[in-house]
């Protein structure tokens, strides 16, 4: 079993459990779930029966030969069970870990937010939807919920594996908490949103374990195809018996065909390779998704991810690095760059937005202007409001303001100053480059402009162009104005953008694309994303997002990473590709098996048919044995591929197809010829035939 | 059940309409046009000389007389058709034999032997395949020029005429390919024999 040694990612424990499970799965009820393997199972029983009767002298074929076939068929069944068990193994291990974190805790139920102190302690399992509980530092959150009061840092490593704590607070888009996570500091009041057994953690355990795994539509369709093939092969082998009797009678000899050999032929022809690996492929796909820290609510969603051809990507975090950053100080009217930087820094000291921080950093980098202690001077900070659209500081009798160009212009003119044309020109240039101009003024004088720029992430352009080749359109979603958005879109190489995006705008865009026949994927976190998430074909909700968003989506990204969408598409495609490739391989294998078995069966009847024995197999018996041994071993050999998935490349469909066809189609045609010949040689070598 | 009740009357009515249109109207129309424009062809291309029938141009017959040109091997059928007085009528059917069997090999060997014996002038030259095989209809009225010429010396000797004369008659009864391209060159056996017999 060299195959397992290669599988370093399968540890000993999982392996041991899988071996045990392979035998447990021999129960008829489990076997009945997979029709193709059921056929092998029944064939194994039949040949075993034939062997037993042969011991009593009712011989269908030599007893040793029948026994050998029966044993190999049992192994074939076990190998298929093993493939499924090992795929489930990883999920089971993960589920065990999750279960450990899901202990029953004491919940501090309160009647209302106003009565924080009238706590009743109840077991978490008894919580009902809508109950309010208070969770303090060091306590485990008893159930999924929505923070309605307070803010706290929460350790969510139990579900995300990420050790850094996250902030959960009431209102806004970071209000959802998950049962089983732990509050590290402060306290929160949460409203319970799920009852025991239906919590996120429960769902997660069920998903990773594969317990609630339903066959996806595509899996069912493929299974229909496989069953149809099996039925045909049953008819082929069953009709072959009378054909053989008929022909033998014509030739005036005894019927040369044994039931044992026909059963062997049937098992060889039936698409056992893909049949054995089909559920393993599905489970492994789900498992890969889990490893990417994405939790799919159904297997169907993963398949849909393979079909997605429009990705709605949030600009921030996916395309650009965080938020805009100060890139340059551009003074006007003879003001020195340093003075501008100094003023800009002053006005940004209290500005905790990433933009504000970046101005302070740039001033320090360029001119060594140190951060001043906020308490040092008597500084009066003017915070940004939507109305003024400016922020600033009153310091030492000076009023320093920075803000949107038109706001600052109004301010300066109102103060009796003039707004220089030079500044106007700068503002326009920056805006046309996709940057954001921040005009800085001191009292009535305009000092200059700070160029805030979006920094495009490294490699995104290449990524998008690869996606385009695969027929996937990328659409940038941004709150920026159209001009800025267009510039960034061009720089990042996305296909389209939605500027000044509103939830309604997103929803409309998704509908438009769907109307044109596209499948749309998006990520979202806020409550206002929920309609769009519900509309999208693949909707990934950030785990940090609101409960509403999580319910509307069909996947949850535990890392809350905006680039995850691309990984999800990859995993979806890989899953489908693996299924298609192994099906092709399995069917292509049949050709060689025919060339091994058919001449072996009928060479006694028509000696001329030995010309079909192109592999030059030793004897009819060794030919049949080699073919079914190959048939069993190939399952084991392909388990790693089924688990890892076929290699994924960002190629257009045509190229992907010819590649996979070459590898798995032609490979499937040639491999068995070589292997069967090899096995035949070994059998002869060991004197087994 | 409801659908069946709704559909059945319509189905039967439409079926009857088409039975009339395609069965009666169409057949009658084609027969009418054909009888009007191509009466000879449409009525079986019977060869008549001075009001006496001498066979059908389309149907082959069996010839064993050395003085006649022989046609394809015939698998005669004397059991299917009788005339009004109960006299047996000749017909023929294909052999439907596999050309790859031992039995067939023997059969052809006998035919070759017989042909070589009857055509001593051709010595050991290969016998044209048409003469040792049964046709598709069993009623093939023609053979290939090669098969006809193979027999010319025998016919000439049996009739005491020159081989050249026989070959000329064969040439006159040879039809080329359609448009010079399609089908094969054929020699009409009955016509050759009728010409040899001086009837045509």
């Amino acid at each position, binding site marked *: 079993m060299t195959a397992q040694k290669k599988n370093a990612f399968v540890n000993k424990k999982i392996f041991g459990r899988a071996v045990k499970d392979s035998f447990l799965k021999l129960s008829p009820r489990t076997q009945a779930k997979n029709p193709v393997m059921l056929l092998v199972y029944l064939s194994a029983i039949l040949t075993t029966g034939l062997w037993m009767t042969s011991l009593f002298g009712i011989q269908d074929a030599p007893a040793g030969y029948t026994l050998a076939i029966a044993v190999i068929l049992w192994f074939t069944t076990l190998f298929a069970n093993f493939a499924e068990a090992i795929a489930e193994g990883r999920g089971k291990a993960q589920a065990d870990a999750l279960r450990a974190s899901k202990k029953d805790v004491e919940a501090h139920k309160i009647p209302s937010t106003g009565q924080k102190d009238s706590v009743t302690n109840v077991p978490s399992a008894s919580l009902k939807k809508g109950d309010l509980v208070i969770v303090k530092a060091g306590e485990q959150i008893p159930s999924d919920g929505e923070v309605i009061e307070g803010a706290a840092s929460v350790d969510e490593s139990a579900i995300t594996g990420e050790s850094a704590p996250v902030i959960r607070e009431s209102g806004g888009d970071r209000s959802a908490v998950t049962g089983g996570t732990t509050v590290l500091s402060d306290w929160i009041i949460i409203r319970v949103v799920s009852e025991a057994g239906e919590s996120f953690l429960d769902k997660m355990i069920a998903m990773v374990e594969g317990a609630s795994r339903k066959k996806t539509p595509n899996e069912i369709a493929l299974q229909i195809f496989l069953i149809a093939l099996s039925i045909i092969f049953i008819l082929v082998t069953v009709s072959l018996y009378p054909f053989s009797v008929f022909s033998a009678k014509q030739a005036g000899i005894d019927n040369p065909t044994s039931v044992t050999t026909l059963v062997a032929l049937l098992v060889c022809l039936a698409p056992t390779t893909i049949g054995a690996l089909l559920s393993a492929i599905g489970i492994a796909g789900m498992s890969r998704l889990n490893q990417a820290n994405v939790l799919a609510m159904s297997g169907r969603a993963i398949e849909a991810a393979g079909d997605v051809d429009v990705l709605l990507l949030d600009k921030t975090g996916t395309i650009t690095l965080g938020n805009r950053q100060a890139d340059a100080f551009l003074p006007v009217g003879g003001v020195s760059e340093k003075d501008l930087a100094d003023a800009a820094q002053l006005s940004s000291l209290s500005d905790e937005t990433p933009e504000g921080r970046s101005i302070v950093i740039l001033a320090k980098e360029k001119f060594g202007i140190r951060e001043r202690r906020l308490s040092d001077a008597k500084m009066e900070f003017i915070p940004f409001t939507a109305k003024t659209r400016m922020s600033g500081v009153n310091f030492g009798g000076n009023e320093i303001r920075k803000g949107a160009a038109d706001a600052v212009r109004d301010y300066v003119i109102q103060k009796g100053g003039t707004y220089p044309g030079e500044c106007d020109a700068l503002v326009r240039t920056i805006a046309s480059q996709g940057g954001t101009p921040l005009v800085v003024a001191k009292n009535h004088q305009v000092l200059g402009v700070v160029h805030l720029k979006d920094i495009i992430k490294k490699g995104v352009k290449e990524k998008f162009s690869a996606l385009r080749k695969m027929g996937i359109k990328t659409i940038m979603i941004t709150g920026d104005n159209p001009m800025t958005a267009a510039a960034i879109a061009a720089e990042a190489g996305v296909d389209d953008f939605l500027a000044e995006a509103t939830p309604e705008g997103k929803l409309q865009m998704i509908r438009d694309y769907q109307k044109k026949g596209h499948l749309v994927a998006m990520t979202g976190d806020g409550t206002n994303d929920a309609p769009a998430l519900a509309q999208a074909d693949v909707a990934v909700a950030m785990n940090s997002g609101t409960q509403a968003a999580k319910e509307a989506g069909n996947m949850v990204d535990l890392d809350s990473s905006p680039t995850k969408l691309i990984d999800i598409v990859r995993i979806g495609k890989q899953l489908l590709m693996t299924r298609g490739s192994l099906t092709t391989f399995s069917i292509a294998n049949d050709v060689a098996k025919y060339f091994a078995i058919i001449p072996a069966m009928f060479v006694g009847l028509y000696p001329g048919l030995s010309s079909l024995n192109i592999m030059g197999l030793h004897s009819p018996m060794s030919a049949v044995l080699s073919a079914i041994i190959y048939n069993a071993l190939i399952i084991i050999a392909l388990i790693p591929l089924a688990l890892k998935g076929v290699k994924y490349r960002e190629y257009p469909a045509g190229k992907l197809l010819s590649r996979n066809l070459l590898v798995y189609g032609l490979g499937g045609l040639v491999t068995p010829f070589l292997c069967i010949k090899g096995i035949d040689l070994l059998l002869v070598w060991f004197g087994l035939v | 059940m409801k659908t069946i009740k709704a559909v059945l009357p319509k189905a039967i009515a439409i079926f009857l309409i088409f039975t009339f249109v395609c069965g009666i109207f169409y057949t009658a129309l084609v027969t009418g046009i054909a009888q009007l424009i191509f009466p000879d062809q449409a009525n079986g291309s019977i060869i008549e000389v001075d009001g006496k029938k001498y066979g059908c141009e*389309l149907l082959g017959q069996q010839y064993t007389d050395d003085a006649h040109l022989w046609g394809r091997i015939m698998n005669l059928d004397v059991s299917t058709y009788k005339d009004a007085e109960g006299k047996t009528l000749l017909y023929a059917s294909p052999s439907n034999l596999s050309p790859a069997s031992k039995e067939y090999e023997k059969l052809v060997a006998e035919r070759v032997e017989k042909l070589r014996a009857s055509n001593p002038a051709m010595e050991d030259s290969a016998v044209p395949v048409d003469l040792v095989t049964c046709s598709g209809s069993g009623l093939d009225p023609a053979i290939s020029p090669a098969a006809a010429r193979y027999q010319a010396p025998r016919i000439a000797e049996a009739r005491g005429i020159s081989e050249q004369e026989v070959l000329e008659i064969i040439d006159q009864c040879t039809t080329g390919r359609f448009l010079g391209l399609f089908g094969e060159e054929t020699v009409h056996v009955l016509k050759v024999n009728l010409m040899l017999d001086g009837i045509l």
Partner: protein
Amino acid sequence: MSNVIQYILYLAILVVLAIPLGAYIKKVMEGEKTFLSPILTPCENAVYKIMRVKKDEEMGWKKYCASVLIFSGSGLVFLFLLQLLQGVLPGNPQGLSGVKWDLSFNTAASFITNTNWQAYSGESTLSYLSQALGLTVQNFVSAATGIAVLFALIRGFQKVKSKGLGSFWVDLTRITIHVLLPLNLVIAVALAGGGVIQNLSPGQTVPLLEPVAVNAEGEILDHAEIDLASQTVTVDGVKVEGAEIVTEQFVPMGPAASQVAIKQTGTNGGGYMGVNSAHPMENPNAFTNLLEMISLLLIPAALCFTFGSCIKNKKQGVAIFMAMFLCLAAALAIVAVNEQAATLQLAQEGSVNLSMIDQAGGNMEGKETRFGIASSATWAAFTTAASNGSVNSMHDSYTPLGGMIPMLLMQLGEVIFGGVGCGLYGMLAFAILTVFIAGLMVGRTPEFLGKKIEPYEMKWAVLVCLATPIAILLGSGIAAAVPEVADSLNNSGAHGFSELLYAYTSAGGNNGSAFAGFNANTVFLNLSLGIVMLFARFLPIAGTLAIAGSLVGKKKVAATSGTLSTTNAMFVFLLILIVLLVGALSFFPALALGPIAEFFSSIA
């Protein structure tokens, strides 16, 4: 060389004629004006008026299917009774008696399924009335039914999120009146001009140049001396008592040309004569042969182009056509090479002249001199590619591999052009299987022409594709176990098995051609072959309509570069591969016991 030119021309003429006919059929079916509409549209409307058919009715798939089944069922009953009762009906100048019930059933099933398997011999079994009113009518309507079902499927691809597939009655009427009747009128008259009989007179007799002697047991007496004057027969100088001297030959008559035309264009294939178009009165010369042979593939080929323009994707039509055409050309090449090479048994170590000098040469057993190898091999490939089944040479007498190819073409499910309509919808079901596998390999759930292929479509598509293999394997498997079937064989050994396999293959492919040495007129064979034909015809029809019904309700998915192209060479190649693979995997063992075994024995 001239043979190669013939092969190429046959294929070229087919393509050249199919393209405009395809465009014409599209216009007719979409209710557009054509150059014949001034005459034919009033006739069409008259039919609707008499039948009270609503022209714009939209049937759901179940109603469409019920209409097809009930209509065909009516035909089955009518044809069955017509044959049973022909003895007491008019239009029977030969005075033939009623047909036996099992043969009647077989023939009725055979003609309503567009199979036209002939367990009977036309000229000796069926009256003119049965031929014209029964067979000719079914030749028309069974063909029209196939095309109608195809159009229901086309509408499934055309329409988005709707329910109706059109009206079966309208489809049936349009095809019959606008396409089949005018086309066949022209062809039938041309055939009559070429020498195919078309009359209503009883069979005739003509004198034999050389009388034939038959002994009392009905055996032909070779080397008999016949004295016509004294009516005595002597063999080797001994007088044969009770011998009969046969002096007349039977000349069949009847309305053949009209039926031959539609049996070719409608891919029916049921000949007027027992030996079909090998008979010189059904196919007298190279001209009629050309006409009949091209017309047998004309509509199936044209429908590929019709399909392309109907779904507004001409390339798709061409792609499907190319897949079929390449298979046909390859099959033709194999048959041609094998037949021209003949067998060792025929070659007699050089004693038989098989050359192409002044003769067709090659394996002439079962072939007509006027057709030679080229026109016979082409016909054999055409007729089994299309589920036509008419023959101009005897397939039973083909070389082992030359005879295997026609069998394989049928076993592929009659999708290499196939029957009118049914060939294409069968091929589209294969296309669905192909996109299913190929779609997965490019990481997409499968779609075809913008419609997602889901479990429901898959379920019916596999049934459509596998109905033929299932019917053939089941039928021939059972037959092989019935002891009396061996008595029907005309050849022994592997070829005998081939005859049996061919019979069920032909029935399962709704083809109708035969290894004609096989005597299929027994109760068991008549019934079992009839059932096989019905199964292989109506299961795919139901499946196709179910698929159409499901597709018509679906939205269309946009095509991107991530979508699997179904119009490029790769798809054509894959489609061929899937068709061949399913066929080969299903039938390799059976073929190994038949033609393949025979081939290896013959070269041993």
